[in-house]
């Protein structure tokens, strides 16, 4: 694939990361914030796999990407369980409404 280099993938990763950061910063919905985190993790994964491919080391980048995917699944499960728990107590998942540790 001539013409497509490491920089192309890094730029895609950078744009996805920036959009994910914007999502995390502006959303007030806890699930929206989790979606932003997923975007950021995907951007990091693109970088891992791209660096691994272009650095010539066989599969290290891909192994790291697999671990990141696993941790993202774990994070989403726990995060959404917490969100549902918050919703049961506060009737809302707006992060500005849920400012009390005890209800």
């Amino acid at each position, binding site marked *: 694939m001539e013409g497509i280099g490491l920089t192309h993938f890094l730029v895609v990763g950078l744009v996805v990361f920036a959009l994910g950061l914007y999502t995390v910063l502006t959303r007030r919905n806890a699930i929206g914030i989790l979606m932003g985190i997923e975007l950021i993790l995907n951007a990091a994964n693109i970088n891992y796999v791209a660096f691994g491919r272009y650095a010539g080391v066989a599969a290290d980048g891909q192994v790291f990407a*697999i671990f990141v995917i696993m941790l993202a699944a774990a994070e989403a499960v726990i995060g959404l369980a917490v969100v549902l728990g918050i919703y049961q107590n506060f009737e809302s998942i707006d992060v500005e409404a849920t400012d009390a540790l005890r209800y």
Partner: protein
Amino acid sequence: MSLSVALFYAFAAFTVVTAAGVAFSRNIVYSAFSLMGTLFGVAALYVFLAADFVAAAQVLVYIGGILVLILFAVMLTHRIADVQVSNRSVGRLPALVLVAGVALVMGRAVLRTAWPVAPALAEAPSTYAVGNQLLGPYVLPFELASFVLLSVLVGAIVVSRKELRSGRD
């Protein structure tokens, strides 16, 4: 421009556009479905990087698992028709400035650095190498991953169950 290059640009544009949909959509259900597009686009980019196993894992775990979970959470928690409640976003301008600054610095780093690029490896199936790495040098993190998943399984049940204390009822 060969077909593969054109396809790369198409998938990259698809990824970026759907990611923008996640960030800017006014309805959280649309955000969730945009996220599905982003995850598919990233899986396609993995294929361009000759990472077939990671691409398959991305589709199975992210789209089959995480995205379905997110959609469940959206449907369970919301008066989803109400746009203002479902996907309010605040502080757009300061966030935009901050993100633009971060992206500028990172973009300069990406574009100015002369990344050392090794000659590209042959595009072989990656499962053999990934399996060897997972059960060789990375066997300890691999085992820890199973422990993490077990504790997440238990933890999610503990967090989300209803409290039933004997004294209360």
